[in-house]
């Protein structure tokens, strides 16, 4: 079932949680709402689920307006951040709940309920826990039970609020992959909220980056990472070096090369740490710097350079680092292979150029 969100706005007192949100989710897509806490992503999810009413705007499920439909009539599966399992019911009864509360005419027979619940528990690989109570389960198990419970009513849409937020890293990674597989099997539209960029990029078909109640960018994981639409997206997804003032290093070059006639207003250049090249010799457009720190971190080596008054972060592969033989205090030259410049006076639109190979 497709979801269409039109001009949704929501305020809590004077706080604008959502400001004119437009989003369309085609059937079968797995969408991540990504953003920092307080950006409105959870509010948007709750509005889709019918747990919050928007101040303005409409929501359409498969083309039909559902804005004012009660949560229980939306056929939405909702998985809560802290699972919200019914603590006085066994795992089996938790999953069966949605079937048992159906009106008598639609309620499946007891045997059918049993069959479907056990099938779902099998799907989440926890059928052996059906007699336990939620308090006897680990966090990851609770999460999977919460998911099975949401799926029991055969929802047209699956909504997940920070589904892996409360779990530790190991379990989180496993569940992520598992959710992706499950989604591909069930083929229903799913929306999940996360503040973890890695999670969004790894699991989702499409990522919706949100900030301050607005959508900053919608795109595939690759698009939002390698082609961020705004400084915010650039900074939120991955590490980045920011060059502010026009007097300083890289930016002076930018201004000379690109936007002289455009505007003398403030602009900012963004360079990913792994997009910076370090050399021992001065090269065309390269800037001088001194090495401050060298940290090998797993597969990469993180190098901090001191350029004028700024610290520049660079990520090198181990091979490249071994070839360069960098030591602390050494003078070197660096230049970006790739960078983006945004005009600060018009934040949402990239200024002038798309890809800047300047220097």
């Amino acid at each position, binding site marked *: 079932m497709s979801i269409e969100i039109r001009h949704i706005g929501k305020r809590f007192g004077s706080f604008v949680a959502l400001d004119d949100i437009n989003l369309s989710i085609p059937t079968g897509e797995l969408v991540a709402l990504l953003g920092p806490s307080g950006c409105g992503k959870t509010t948007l999810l709750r509005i889709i689920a019918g747990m919050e009413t928007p101040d303005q705007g409409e929501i359409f499920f498969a083309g039909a307006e559902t804005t004012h439909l009660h949560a229980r009539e939306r056929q939405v599966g909702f998985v809560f951040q802290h699972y919200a399992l019914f*603590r006085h019911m066994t795992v089996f009864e938790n999953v069966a709940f949605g079937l*048992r*509360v159906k009106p008598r005419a639609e309620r499946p027979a007891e045997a059918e309920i049993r069959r479907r619940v056990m099938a779902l528990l099998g799907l989440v690989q926890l059928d052996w826990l059906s007699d336990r109570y*939620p*308090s006897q389960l680990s966090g990851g198990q609770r999460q999977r039970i919460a998911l099975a419970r*949401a799926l029991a009513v055969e929802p047209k849409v699956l909504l997940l609020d920070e589904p892996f937020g409360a779990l530790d890293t190991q379990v989180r990674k496993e569940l992520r992959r598992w959710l992706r597989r499950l989604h591909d099997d069930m083929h229903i539209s799913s929306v999940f909220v996360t503040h973890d960029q890695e999670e969004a990029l790894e699991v989702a078909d499409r990522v919706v980056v949100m900030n301050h109640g607005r959508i900053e960018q919608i795109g595939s994981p690759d698009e939002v990472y390698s082609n961020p639409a705004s400084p915010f997206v650039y900074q939120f997804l991955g590490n980045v070096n920011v060059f502010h003032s026009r007097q300083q290093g890289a930016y002076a070059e930018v201004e000379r090369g690109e936007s002289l006639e455009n505007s003398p207003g403030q602009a900012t250049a963004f360079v990913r740490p792994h997009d910076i090249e370090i050399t021992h010799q001065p090269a065309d457009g390269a800037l001088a710097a001194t090495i401050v720190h060298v940290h090998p971190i797993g597969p990469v080596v993180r190098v901090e350079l001191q350029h004028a008054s700024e610290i520049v972060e660079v990520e090198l592969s181990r091979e490249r680092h071994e070839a360069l033989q960098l030591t602390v205090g050494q003078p070197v030259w660096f230049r970006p292979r790739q960078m983006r410049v945004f005009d600060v006076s018009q934040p949402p639109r990239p200024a002038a150029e798309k890809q800047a190979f300047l220097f």
Partner: protein
Amino acid sequence: MRGKLCKKINRKYPNHQNRFQISLCNLMSIKSRRVLPGFGLALGYTLAYLSLLILLPLGGLILKASELGFGQILDIALGERSLAAFRVTFVASFLAAGVNALFGLIVAWMLVRYTFPGKRLVDALVDLPFALPTAVAGITLATLYAGNGWLGRYLEPLGFKVAYTPAGIVVALTFITLPFVVRTLQPVIEDIETEVEEAAASLGASRFQTFGRIIFPALLPALLTGFTLAFARALGEFGSVIFIAGNLPLVSEIVPLLIIAKLEQYDVLGATALAVVMLAISFGLLLTINLLQWWTANRHKNAGGGKP
């Protein structure tokens, strides 16, 4: 840590019942617990106070009752007048606690979940029966429900005679025990995560189904605790009841009043026998309340959504 060390020592020398070592371990474990001063003084004072004020008098009661023996106590308690008094006391207390369980649930729900003008005032007023001396409650309720009272005036023509009947006892006990259910339920209702209700709604449950299957089971232990507290208090209540009950032996005489009546007739042993039975019931109810509270606190302890 020290406990571990002790275990280690004991494991290392399992056959060495070395006195010194054992006493050292005990000493260390005691020291680790008693970093703060004043334990001896505080516990000593507490125990002395409890002994003088509770244990000695109750011991005296039991000693006196032992002059009678179990069979005689039972005979007195099951005598016609006593039995009738016990029946009136229990039935009235049960009904009062029941009325309070129902309305207490409504009031607690309303005070936590709804907003209405004067809510804080109403919330504060709920404790009135705890603060108002029982004698005042007694004469006031008797006056209200008497034939010419504000309420009796309308009730008696309809055939409801409240004052000076067993129904009056129920009214007085309902007033006296009103705060118990409300006050036990309020924090529990506050603690219900709305997420759980939302989960039920998103799974298609109607509001009534959510209440019946999710909310009510969560409230049940607290509701039972509140009910038992109210019941226990009602059983022993004296001051408010005697004014409105009519105190007719076999009809509207409660056990505490019968104890006093026996005392005034210098039947100390009879009074003692009834008092011991009441005390045993109090103990039983106290135990039930403790068990219920333990149940409330420990049932599915780290359940549902609690963050690790």
